[in-house]
């Protein structure tokens, strides 16, 4: 377990997100808000091909998490996405990295920062909403 939640990958994707856009064919949307800070993430979902994009306003953790999520779920099935979400939530809580999570493991350091875990899970809440709304 890496104790630093601000790894290079996180810093990079928070500064230069790759998925901060509305994907072509968007047919569902979801939203997450953190009352503590006013941070917000809006998720766009094109269910065909599971293309995800996001519009996020918030801290580095939230921005990176949203972007890494969009990358990780691309092309997956709905069930696979929910499984990934379960694994991700568990990893953020325990700090136990898991190969299946790939680049998402960069956020394992959050285990020692409980108050910040919500920043990383918010995009996933928004995605769930989109999947359930759709």
């Amino acid at each position, binding site marked *: 377990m890496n104790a630093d*939640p*601000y790894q290079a990958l996180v*810093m990079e994707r928070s*500064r230069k997100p790759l998925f901060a856009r509305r994907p072509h064919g968007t047919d569902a949307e979801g939203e997450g808000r953190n009352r*503590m*800070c*006013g*941070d917000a993430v809006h998720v766009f979902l094109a269910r065909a091909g599971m293309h995800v994009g996001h519009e996020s*306003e*918030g*801290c*580095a*953790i939230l921005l990176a998490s949203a972007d890494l999520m969009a990358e990780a779920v691309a092309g997956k099935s709905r069930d696979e996405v929910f499984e990934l979400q379960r694994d991700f939530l568990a990893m953020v809580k325990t700090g136990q990295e898991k190969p299946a999570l790939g680049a998402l493991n960069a956020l394992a350091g959050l285990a020692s*920062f409980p108050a*910040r875990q919500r*920043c990383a899970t918010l995009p996933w809440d928004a995605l769930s909403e989109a999947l359930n709304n759709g």
Partner: protein
Amino acid sequence: MSDVLHDLNVESLRKEFPILSQNVHGRPLVFLDSAASAQKPRTVIDSMRFVMESQYANVHRGLHYMSEKTSDAYEAVRDKVAGFLNAASRDEIVFTRNGTESINLVAYTYGRTALKPGDAVAVSAMEHHANLVPWQMLRDAHGTELRIVEITDSGEIDFESLERVFADGKVKLLAVTHMSNVLGSYTPVERLAAFAHERGARILIDGCQAIVHRKVDVQAMGADFYVFSGHKLYGPTGIGVLYGRAELLEAMPPFLGGGDMIEHVSFEKSRWAKPPHRFEAGTPAIIETIGLGAAIDFVNEIGFPAIAAHERALTEHALSVLGNIEGLRILGQAQDRGGVVSFTMRDVHAHDIATLLDRQGIAVRAGQHCAEPLMGRMGVTSTARASFALYTLPREIDALAEGLLRIQRMFA
């Protein structure tokens, strides 16, 4: 920086606060979150231990030694608080859990009897939720109006807005902070009290922040109600104070019902005790009240002239060091400001600042500081906040500045 310490031997005072010698993440703790809650000096900790170890029983109702001693110690703190605030009488001091409960007590009792539906309560745009939400709840339950007095861009009361808010004569209570927990601004409470009184309104002053830094004289300032919390004043949690002018308290119905607040109870009817006991139902926070007494002694011994001078020097130092950091914006520039500095930093979110400072052992607060509407007014969603106490050292502010520069480099 030696002149900063002219009046206060901070290094030696710090020895009275055991927690300040702790390490955090392997670094010496730099605690810059005292506005949320202050650390406790040994004398407070010891006073609470002393009661529990050698002189404890329930108060007021006992005819035995321990109960009499404890009652005396408890009631002696009422005298002490009355002296601390320069209240005209000890009976004007009501013990509550915290400043929040003190304000709610006024909203529930004074608010629902002295205020009539259609009357208005005015609060400023920089109130803590504790001095906003109770008046919203009163509005929704009782039909009073809630009006907002604007603040200027520098974070001071806008007197033109105040005039407008009072213009139609409907405002019967002005509820306003004595010092903003976000901007650090003091408000001119004497002037505000005179303003309200000239227009037939009362004034409630939220002293949760100011009480820590300044000598408060409720009579000189013309306060009708003044509230504060023990835990920000180096005292324990679980104890707060409501000062209310005798004439107002006497006319107020009780807030909570139970033991100790009644003269006489039958199934049909109860006769209320006189203030302050009317407002203290059930077993009070005995141990914590005694701890608050020790905190007041501690602060009095140091004296507000020294505390205020130290705080002024720290604040000036902070404004100057932080002001030198590029891309850092300090919120508020009130003329009269105290030891609280809120800021934002370009391209770095306040939560990232707090987490990354914490990893260097530096504790600051980040978020909305229970003042969400003020965030909107200042055009931010959250800020980082450093706040100072009598044990804060200038070099801790330097450490903050270095920490911030390090974070900027990470995010560059």
